């Protein structure tokens, strides 16, 4: 194995084709008689073909806040519910304005978006209904069919904290309304509840959160 030490350091360059012709010939002559160096060279030889695939590809440095934005979105997306019954065309729900009187004085404009997911082939899409209020009240709702109707998952933020107010959730269409249940805000003005209504998916067109006769939030499914 004489010359191994010297040749070893040439093996990388040789695998990349970066030696002078005389040096390359010397390496070839050595590996022909040295199994160790031949094995080492063989382990390096697949690399150039892989390296060229990365030519021109620079891994960008993500902005510092991207990680936090992702975590925020995950936190805001709890709970997760699949709504496979919703056809894909619900992928863009129209913005809708709150008809009634908002909690507090400010008028509330609601933007409703449905986020469609289709990761994985052939899997049922999942959706979250997002309601954002300009006055700081926001809610997300998810719906899942169950035996007798719908299970409604509701996540609300920005309500007057810790009050005694009881909010009611209604599933409605024109001239028809079904209650899904009631809840209170916690000390932070938040609420997460799972409610059940006898209204079946498809029977209602909008979700309303009311306090007494006051409209708090509305989301239209159209």
């Amino acid at each position: 194995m004489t010359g191994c030490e010297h040749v070893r350091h040439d093996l990388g360059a040789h695998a990349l084709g970066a030696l002078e012709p005389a040096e390359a010939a010397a390496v070839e002559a050595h590996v022909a008689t040295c199994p160790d160096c031949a094995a080492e060279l063989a382990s390096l030889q697949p690399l150039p073909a892989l390296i060229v695939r990365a030519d021109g590809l620079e891994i960008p440095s993500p902005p510092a806040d991207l990680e936090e934005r992702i975590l925020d979105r995950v936190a805001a997306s709890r709970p997760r519910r699949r709504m496979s019954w919703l056809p894909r065309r619900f992928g863009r729900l129209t913005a809708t304005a709150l008809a009634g009187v908002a909690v507090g004085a400010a008028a509330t404009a609601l933007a409703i978006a449905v986020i469609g997911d289709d990761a994985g082939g052939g899997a049922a899409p999942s959706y979250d209904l997002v309601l954002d209020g300009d006055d700081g009240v926001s809610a997300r709702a998810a719906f899942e069919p169950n035996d007798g109707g719908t299970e409604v998952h509701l996540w609300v933020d920005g309500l007057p904290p810790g009050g005694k107010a009881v909010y009611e959730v209604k599933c409605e269409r024109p001239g028809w309304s079904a209650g899904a249940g009631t809840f209170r805000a916690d000390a932070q003005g938040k609420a997460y509840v799972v409610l059940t209504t006898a209204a079946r998916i498809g029977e209602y067109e909008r979700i309303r959160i009311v306090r007494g006769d006051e409209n708090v939030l509305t989301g239209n499914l159209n």
Partner: protein
Amino acid sequence: MPAPPATEDARIVERLRTDETGEAMRALYRTYGGELLGFAQRSLGDRGAAEEIVQEVFLRAWRHAGRYDAERATVRTWLYRIARNAIIDARRRASVRPAAATREAEEQDSGGSIEQAMLGWQVAAALERLTPEHRQMIRMAQFRGMSMREIAHETGLPVGTVKSRTWYALRSLRLVLEEMGVVPQ
């Protein structure tokens, strides 16, 4: 032998749904965020849109973590597929001819281009894990086609140093690619 990172990744995905601390998500993002951002940016040609895609990818990953099957795909492959779907959706939204954009993206995919693209980004990520000195040797020799002598001339390093650095660089790269499962161990 330590467990390969692919298995470690699968465990992270398993924890994703129940982990309230966000640590599993952070770990996943820190491993793949840069790659996926590069992949999306190249696909869409727009940094802002690419950042949106990356957010969407991790959000979808979180939602669908329960459906991840470690026996069917590595976490990386799974994430790239999610990214591919998110990019198709983004193109569909942006395109005046949605059907055409979708078809184009799907055709690219059926041609195996997502696997090809993924491999490129994977190698780029592997190169990122080398020391700057090692990366420099590989870039000069491979991307710029320079000989050891030319590199020595340009860098002012002895040619023996350039050679040994190149050798160590390739060995390190090989180890990283083994860990990633790109080349067999």
